[in-house]
């Protein structure tokens, strides 16, 4: 139920984005009068904060759950002649980690995630873009306790993001972005703040 509702809401959102883009084609001023079609690669990193509940309890937990971790993102976008852009996003983050001490044995666990998302994007005001993605997160448990285990699972998920883009040149921009990652099958979510470089590596008219 949880999954289907989120999916439904995201599809509604994407439909709204598409309709809105058709209605508002002429209302937005872009930095250049030329309408370029292009491919843009965004690469960046920052810090992520895990925002949902972890249920691990003593005796497994010897300290607190570490909720802040570095995050990196790679996003490839196709900028067509209309406003709704689309592409693919991946990256890496540690959702959370903690140490354990139980019956004289110590260990540690961290849960990392690699987003594998189809993303849609649209400029809403000059230099400000919103993003919404749908796909999966490859979650990986890295456990060191009574041996070492690396175990993976794919879970459905989404993301949304809001960014500000400042262009250095026609090809290169710097981007500040707030992103909400939501692996909703596993109820893992994180808020990320990132700085990125956007490189328009291929463009045509």
């Amino acid at each position, binding site marked *: *139920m*949880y999954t289907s*509702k989120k999916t439904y*809401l*995201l599809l*509604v*959102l994407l439909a*709204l*984005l598409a309709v*809105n883009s058709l*209605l*508002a084609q002429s*209302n*937005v001023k872009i930095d250049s009068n030329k309408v370029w079609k292009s491919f843009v690669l965004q690469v960046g990193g920052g810090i992520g904060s895990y925002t*949902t*509940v*972890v*249920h*691990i*309890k003593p*005796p*497994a937990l010897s300290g607190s759950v570490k909720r802040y971790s570095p995050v990196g993102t790679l996003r490839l976008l196709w900028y067509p002649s209309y406003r709704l852009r689309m592409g693919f996003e991946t990256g890496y983050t540690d959702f*959370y*980690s*903690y140490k*354990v001490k*139980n019956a004289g044995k110590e260990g540690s*666990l*961290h*849960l990392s995630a690699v987003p594998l998302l189809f993303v849609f994007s*649209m400029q*809403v*005001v000059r230099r400000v873009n*919103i993003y*919404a993605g749908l796909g999966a997160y490859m*979650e*990986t*448990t890295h*456990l060191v*306790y*009574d*041996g070492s*285990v690396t*175990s*993976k*699972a794919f*879970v459905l998920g*989404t993301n*949304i993001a809001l960014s500000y883009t400042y262009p250095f040149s026609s090809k290169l921009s710097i981007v500040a972005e707030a992103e*909400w990652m939501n692996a909703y*099958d*596993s*109820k*893992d979510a994180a808020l990320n703040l990132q700085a990125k470089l956007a490189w328009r590596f291929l463009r045509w008219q």
Partner: protein
Amino acid sequence: MKKYFIIPVFFCLFFSCQKKYEVVMPDTATWSMFNDPAALPLTPASRPAMEGVYTLSKGNDIFGDQAAIKWSHTSKGSDTTYHVSGFFGKDIAYFICEGKQLNGSILLNGYWRKMVSTETGIVHLTISAANGAALLLGPGPVITPGSIVIDGFFGTGSENPGTPITLSYIRKLNNSPASFQIAAHRSGGRTSDLLPVSENSVAMILKTPEFGSTGVEVDVRFTKDGVPILYHDNTLNLREVQKSGLVGPIEDYTYDQLSTFVRLVHGEKIPTLREALDAVVYQTQLQFVWLDTKYTSSIAPIHAMQLEYIQKAAAIGRKLDIVIGLPGKDQFNQFLNLADYKNVPSLCELGANESDQINAKIWAPRFTEGTQNELVADEHTKGRKVYVWTVDEPAFITSFINDGHFDGMLSNFPSCVAYNYYVHQ
């Protein structure tokens, strides 16, 4: 302005509310009469004498016209806990109470629940001396229609019970076929049905007799270090366990790792098969265990444990059938590798022919095949029992019990099977 409209819509949709379903178990420890220090345990003879089919003259709009009342008990060492359950025909409703006697009356205190919803509440019931308590608590009670009248009240949630309910004894519980097994799925019921304990836990095995179960199906998997455990799904996920950071196949982890890091939804540890069978043999009166093999490697370790616990049950005079469930071809082929497999008690979910091939003790067709009365009769002539799985829709449960000739039924709602079996005439 149109373009700004999208932003709040975007966030509203993404963060929109979701309804969370939960059943909050009511606090049943508030009935002062029941807590009176003068209240005593019931006499051993009074409990089975009270069992029977009752008609409802009050409360029937909520629970239906009939109830089957049945006692169950679990033991821990020398302590035995008794519960009386009332199974109703409407909305898969039941009550579960404890009983005491006070000043010549019988008091039943507990809660009721409807499995089709989240409705629950407290129930306080009384059998006065004149309405049958004197008979039940006396020597050699002989019960006749109308000789027991149970009066009381039920409420919603934790509110004080105020809605009247009256049940009158009309006849004994059906016991035909006598060996009919009410087998509870996932050791007693699904976590997703908002039960107070987790599926495939020892706590659920101890709870399920209160739901009317006479047997359990448990899901067996192996940890990385070869410990057989109870777990249904092929991965750790929030449907079954609390969030701990462990993801992926359960077979990736050792038992020590799972025991340290993972808790089932209601906080229980994932039990080993040994812990589960210990609970069945030494703490319940369950008569049947279906070891559903959720893995495809060797059956031999499970078979060794099956033999061990059949012997343990026999050693304490317990009648207990433990069968190895074979849900698919992979498990079937592994079963053929057992020496003397034709003499290993098994339950085959494949066809009747495969059941013949391994001399399965039980053939278990899926409920979607219907009653299959001719095939069932044919299996009976071979000395084989037939259990149908997994029947959850009340109309099917009623139909299969009234019109079929099965020897057992697997369900997530054993209380519904119990009602239909016990009131059947």
